[in-house]
């Protein structure tokens, strides 16, 4: 199937002048979890709203190679605000979804509601945040869609249900589906993502497989005086972050860290997602 979502040169400026997305490219491939990771205000929701056709934008977006309006029956979306119809009960909601969507699996919906401990005859208006989220997710996952789009799906969920949700998402991938997952929670992304696009201040500052971050990058901690002494050209590194007494360098070139590995004051470390993310984000201001 190849490319499920193709975003080219996406720009979005709101009527109040805020430039939420400053020209990004995104390519979501088939059968993987593509995470959009970034702090609040990075432009993730605007990106998703553009993909879903909720807002106007500049640029070119294709889903399954077509305009999104033509393929809506293959999509399931969980928004940031998981509000559902308050006077309905979960049971009535399932009935409604069954009538509305051809690909809705009623049996699966009841199974998921039970899995998440949702009372099926209680009015949704009385639900807590966690229950609302669980309900919305259950209805969305019960749809046999080809593409699932989640915007911060774990809000309000306790750790066990969060883990349950990630497990359900992984099963979708094993079943051959595709997921676009937006979050600002690093441990979650670390657990679920196959491919990560890091977004910050309207730009995508890194895109790559999660495995690659572990395999191809190393962090170098260089005390400031040493960096002057040796004369390290920090511009050659993938990213840099200048702290009080040390310069943190992110490198994906093994020649770089091999040449510096002999220095006893320079610490070379494997990279986890959190450190990778922090160095890129905080170092962003040093670079741009």
């Amino acid at each position, binding site marked *: 199937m190849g490319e499920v979502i193709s975003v080219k040169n996406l720009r979005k400026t709101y009527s109040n002048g805020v430039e939420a997305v400053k020209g990004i490219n995104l390519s979501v491939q088939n059968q993987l979890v593509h995470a959009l990771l970034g702090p609040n205000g990075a432009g993730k929701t605007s990106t998703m*709203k553009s993909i*879903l*056709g*909720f*807002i*106007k934008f500049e640029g070119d977006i294709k889903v399954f190679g077509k305009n999104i*309006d033509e393929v*809506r*029956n293959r*999509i*399931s*979306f969980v*928004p940031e*605000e998981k*509000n*559902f*119809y*308050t*006077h*309905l009960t979960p049971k009535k909601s399932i009935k*409604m979804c069954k*009538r*509305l*969507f051809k690909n809705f699996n009623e049996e699966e919906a009841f199974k998921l509601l039970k899995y998440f401990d949702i009372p099926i005859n209680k009015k949704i208006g009385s639900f807590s945040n966690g229950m609302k989220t669980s309900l919305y997710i259950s209805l969305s996952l019960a*749809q046999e869609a080809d593409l699932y*789009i989640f915007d911060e799906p774990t809000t309000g969920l306790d750790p066990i249900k969060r883990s349950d949700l990630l497990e359900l998402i992984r099963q979708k991938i094993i079943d051959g589906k595709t997921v676009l997952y937006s979050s600002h929670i690093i441990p979650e992304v670390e657990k679920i993502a196959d491919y990560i696009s890091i977004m910050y201040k309207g730009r995508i500052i890194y895109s790559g497989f999660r495995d690659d971050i572990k395999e191809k990058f190393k962090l170098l901690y260089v005390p400031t005086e040493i960096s002057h002494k040796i004369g390290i050209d920090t511009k050659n590194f993938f990213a840099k972050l200048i702290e009080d007494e040390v310069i943190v360098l992110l490198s994906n070139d093994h020649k770089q860290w091999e040449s510096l590995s002999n220095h006893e004051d320079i610490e070379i470390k494997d990279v986890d997602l959190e450190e990778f993310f922090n160095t890129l984000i905080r170092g962003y201001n040093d670079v741009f």
Partner: protein
Amino acid sequence: MFFKELNDIKMRSIVILLLLLVSLAVTIALRPYTETMFSQMISEFEKLPKFMKKIIGSPEQLTRLKDDEYYLISQWHGKNLGQFLPLLSLLIAFPIFAKENEKKTIYFLLARKKRKFVFWVKFLTGLFVLLIMTGGLSTMGFVLMKILGYSVSLVHLLPCLISEMVGVTFFFSLFLLFSIISNDQVKPVIAGIVILIGLPLLSLIKSVSFLNPYPYILCVNVLDKGIDWPYTIVLASVSLLLIVSDYLVFKNREF
């Protein structure tokens, strides 16, 4: 989705329906009393204080009230039901889009269905309920009076019905526009009320008084002149224009 929309409208339509049925019952129940009351008033018209004469109008009008048909048209279609119809349209229309905009439940539908589909189901369900209620209540006035033995004929009911149906369609399409544009449920209500109060006031200015559709809906001239075809066609066309605008605004709106 039709059933879900129906469900949404259910609560308020049932409440309004009950209120109007009570109003209908009262209107018809008062008929015998009005006959004697007005007979008395006519005979003693000259004796009434000046301000009362002004309110009641002319003795000729009072005489007409003795006529059942006139009573039905003027009291039910022209007053108790008729004056409520624009408000009924507002009450049905205002939350159809605005509620989902406010509560952000609209995303569920918009993600999975084309805007064309979402618009037409919501619009048609609302209009359907409104027309059924209007048609039903309108006809019931005639039916009840007939059953109770009063002399009323279908001849005047039909034109009245048409005016009312076209009238509510006009108001519904207009108020729906406010519902589509707003991000909360309060604004469309306020805008609607402004229209409901403002339109009758237009009658005060002779040159633009034709813009006020109230007399048309209230079947004021039906007994004497029958249905006002030109006005019907114009109002229907304006409604059509409004419906197209509703669709286009919804289609291009950002959420």
